[in-house]
């Protein structure tokens, strides 16, 4: 190819390229990028600050990477303040998410194939529970857990006092209270998510099985349950995220004692008006966010699916 033809070729390619991205397109991408910057800004500033020493974040721009002030100190400090409550939160969020998903699944199955006039109405009453402002149950909830002493009940339940067993701690009773409470208030949304999934399942198979005389129980175990794996993941992710992230109910049930969840403990690192050490506070915020961020990064689609089902 002659040099002349080569130049012409390149120019043609350039013209083509310019036509493809017209000005509006470029503006669109600039807009998208600026917005992405704004949405990521608090994360970026947070990570940078959590990697700086105190003198480092006091003297450098919050967005600047830590150069000579790099330290992991804030992370170890925050972790030592939060590790116990991190375990507490795991200890109730995982079982409560599983339990509410299981109960939601069986309730949804029972409410999907209508064989009773008021079944839809009953489902409506389940769904209304999703929109409950927790404030309206807090005082009775405190009264309830005051009256029902789970610790004493479990101590007297079997032939031996469970609290004297090795590895048992007294505050596990409070963790159990958290599991029961979060399970109960998680059932409505779990039922809603399962039910919309079950409604979309092919009814043909279910109908055929029913005509063959299958009971609701055998339909559930033989047909519905094996198909439910994807929705179980969606519901588990949704429930785990909201239980882990929640503050109010956990604060009321567990308080600031040894069973305190991480969303309560992290507040000890700083609030407005006090003089916080921002590097430790940001590290603590990230530690609190890690489980849900990991879920979001690895199961983003499932997370979005649960979110959409809510509306």
């Amino acid at each position, binding site marked *: 190819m002659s040099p002349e033809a080569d130049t012409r070729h390149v120019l043609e390619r350039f013209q083509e390229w310019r036509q493809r991205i017209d000005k509006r397109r470029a503006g*669109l991408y600039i807009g*998208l990028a600026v917005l*992405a910057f*704004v*949405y*990521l*800004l*608090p*994360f970026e500033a947070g990570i940078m600050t959590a990697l700086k020493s105190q003198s480092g974040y006091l003297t450098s721009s*919050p967005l600047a990477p830590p150069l000579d002030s790099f330290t992991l100190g804030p992370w170890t400090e925050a972790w030592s303040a939060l590790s116990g409550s991190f375990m507490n939160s795991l200890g109730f969020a995982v079982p409560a998410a599983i339990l509410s998903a299981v*109960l*939601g699944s*069986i*309730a949804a199955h*029972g409410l999907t194939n209508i064989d*009773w006039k008021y*079944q*839809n*109405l*009953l*489902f409506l*009453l389940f*769904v*209304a*529970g*999703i*929109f*409950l*402002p927790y*404030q309206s*149950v807090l*005082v*009775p909830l*405190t*009264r309830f857990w005051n009256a029902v002493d789970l610790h004493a009940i479990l101590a007297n339940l079997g032939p031996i006092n469970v609290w004297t067993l090795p590895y048992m701690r007294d505050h596990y009773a409070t963790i159990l209270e958290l599991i029961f409470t979060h399970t109960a*208030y998680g*059932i*409505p949304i779990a039922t809603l998510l399962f039910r919309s999934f079950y409604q979309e399942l092919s009814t043909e198979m279910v109908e055929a099985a029913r005509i063959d005389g299958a009971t*609701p129980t055998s339909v559930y175990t033989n047909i519905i349950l094996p198909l439910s794996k994807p929705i179980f993941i969606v519901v588990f992710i949704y429930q785990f*995220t909201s239980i*882990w*992230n*929640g*503050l*109010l109910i956990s*604060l009321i049930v567990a308080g600031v004692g040894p069973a305190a969840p991480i*969303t309560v403990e*992290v507040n000890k*690192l700083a*609030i407005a008006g006090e003089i*916080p050490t921002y590097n430790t*506070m940001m590290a603590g*915020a990230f530690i*609190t*966010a890690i489980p849900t961020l990991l879920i*979001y990064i690895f199961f*983003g689609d499932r997370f*979005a699916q649960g*979110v959409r089902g809510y*509306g």
Partner: protein
Amino acid sequence: MIRSIHFWLLPMLIVFLAVYGTIGWNFIISLTDFQGITLPAYEVSNFDLEMYTQLIEDSTFWRALRNTVILMVLFPLACLSVGIFLAIIVDQKIRFENTFRIIYLLPFSLSFVVTAKFWLWMYNPEIGVINSILGYFGLDFLALNWLAPEYRLWAVMIALVWQFSGYAMIIYLAGLRRIPTTQYEAAKSDGANSLTVYLRIIIPQLRASTVSAAIVLIVFTLKAFDFLYAMFRSFPGPTADILATMMYREAFESANWAYGATIAMVLFLLALVIVVPYLYTEYRRGAL
């Protein structure tokens, strides 16, 4: 015979006791004078509306109610506007669509508590993120004390829009994808520009998405306690105090249990006013 009863009976009992039974119990407590460490006395002869009359005369209540209503109206509006804008620009057959979507939804995976911590750092008046950036561009006159009482409610709202606009985007995107593309094309071949297409043809069809997202966002506002508590503990000051924080203070810090239960009833009624018409129309439409 109801053949499915053994499926829903146990979950139903739990939900009914935990939700409806407990609200009933809360209402009964609001009729008593229960406070302090003594046990409540549930004597029908002593039930009265004293706490409610006390509430009506309490100026703290009216301020908290005002702030709650402002938040309930403006926050969902702002969130939906940002959300629909995000959904439209993400829906332009762009490259890296997934990446942008993930970024905009990322804050929604966070806890209210974590968002509060992030924004404490954003809003710090001396060395915080926003004021540093403004200073960098020589815009120091814009660098306000964001958490000062007069801006506090707005500061809260901005942080919450950051967290929840991605949620609105997801709902709107699902709505946009349900609209057949032939409609865009038909409108465009008529010579309408894209803004007109969106305003006249697309957005009206997103009514269902708007309603369901708005309901969820309003309910989130009623739960915004977590955020305010993580930022200011239980007293965000009169300019940002909401019913949820006031209720917590009265019941759990001052041990005015009956009074707290009364504020809780008002919150419950607020939720009812919004949710019942929504659920009723959904139910009538057969959407449930």
